[in-house]
């Protein structure tokens, strides 16, 4: 089963390589990402599968909305590379040299892969001790909120930097004006169904993921992405641009500081005893819930700002 999905995934990626039009290329990439997320599920990692599915949708929306606004949908369909003359030098530059480089690195890479079976010491340690050390039943959540909390802090910092970069590079301080581009789909049955029925269920699902992140698959990142998709859906269909970007940005900054304080409380307390410290189960569960909630709000704010700024580029 897994091998079948993997071969579908491989063929999708080969199709991506041979597409000439940009729009079809982006859509094939979306299909390959969705199949990859199905593969993650069969590899026994539902957390990564959820994150990848929402991530692929976000990347596709960013590509399509941004380039559709920027180049126009007709240009996007015929957005072919500028014509180049087919001389011998060009064939050498375009096919033979890159293929040689790729094959050499591939051979080197295969040579360095270990043939011995995988060492399972760390895996067994985490599975045995996660529920007593950090708490909860989800070992993945216990790792990224307990044992390797520095990774989570730096990931949150990187998302913050990305938001700052996007806000800085897309200069938009004026008042937003509606141009009526999306008004044609407003009264469509499918769009109404999406906004009124599917989107609220998505928000509810996001809150469920955040609240139950310690027990089942899910957590702050996945729940935050699901909540952010609601605002994007609402904007794309009804053309509502009423979210105060600066306030949301400030909220995200504050929550980042709160995440750092929360994590450092846990870690610095551990310096006097064990790392991670042995708390009571109720304290562990409260810690996990608060961290999941903070990360969820932060991710939702970050991705809402990212997409709103993208659309704002064109409307400037």
């Amino acid at each position, binding site marked *: 089963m897994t091998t079948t999905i993997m071969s579908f995934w491989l063929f999708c990626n080969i199709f991506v390589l041979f597409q000439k039009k940009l729009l079809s290329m982006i859509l094939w990439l979306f299909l390959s990402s969705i199949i990859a997320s199905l593969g993650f599920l069969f590899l026994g990692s539902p957390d990564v599968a959820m994150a990848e599915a929402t991530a692929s949708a976000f990347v596709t929306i960013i590509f399509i909305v941004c380039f559709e606004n920027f180049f126009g949908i007709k240009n996007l369909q015929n957005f072919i590379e500028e014509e180049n003359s087919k001389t011998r030098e060009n064939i050498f530059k375009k096919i033979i040299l890159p293929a040689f480089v790729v094959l050499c690195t591939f051979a080197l890479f295969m040579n360095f892969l270990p043939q011995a079976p995988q060492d399972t010491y760390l895996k067994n340690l985490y599975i045995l001790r996660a529920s007593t050390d950090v708490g909860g039943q989800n*070992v993945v959540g216990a790792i990224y909120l307990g044992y*390797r909390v520095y990774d989570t802090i730096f990931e949150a910092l990187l*998302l913050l930097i990305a938001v700052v970069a996007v806000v800085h590079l897309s200069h938009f301080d004026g008042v937003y004006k509606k141009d009526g581009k999306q008004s044609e789909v407003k009264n469509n049955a499918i769009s109404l169904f999406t906004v009124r029925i599917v989107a609220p269920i998505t928000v509810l699902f996001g809150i469920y993921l955040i609240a139950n992140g310690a027990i089942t698959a899910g957590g702050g990142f996945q729940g935050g992405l699901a909540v952010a998709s609601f605002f994007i859906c609402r904007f794309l269909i009804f053309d509502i641009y009423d979210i105060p970007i600066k306030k949301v940005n400030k909220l995200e900054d504050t929550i980042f500081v709160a995440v750092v304080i929360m994590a450092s409380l846990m870690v610095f307390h551990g310096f006097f005893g064990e790392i991670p410290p042995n708390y009571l189960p109720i304290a562990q569960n409260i810690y996990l819930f608060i961290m999941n909630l903070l990360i969820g709000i932060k991710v939702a704010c970050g991705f809402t700002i990212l997409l709103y700024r993208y659309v704002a580029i064109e409307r400037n």
Partner: protein
Amino acid sequence: MNSIELISIIVFFLGLYGLLTNRNIVKTIVFASMMEVGIIMFWLSIGFTEGMVAPIVASMFEVDNYQVYISDPLPQALMITAIVIGISITAIKTIMFITLYRKFKTTDWDIAKIKSKEVSKEAIQKG
């Protein structure tokens, strides 16, 4: 080494080939995200055997009896952060491309390189 690892390595190098052979800036961004998915799949498939389940442990009974069938939780925790970082980096790449397009009106790496050299030469001549 199982077949999934091999397929993910092949996908990574397909993305690398696409990066090297395309002059269009947008296409290189697309291939970079393809390489990223290949890396994630490689990390998750290390040490995988058919029939493994998610690392959600309800009781110590499960740990004692089915420890072999639980998948490795460490790469999964690392890859969740990698996915979120990947989206934010893709956003930065696209916004940088848009600013570059506004400045030089091109989607080609070579033309953008030539034009940026011209701009810097003019700046040097002006002092």
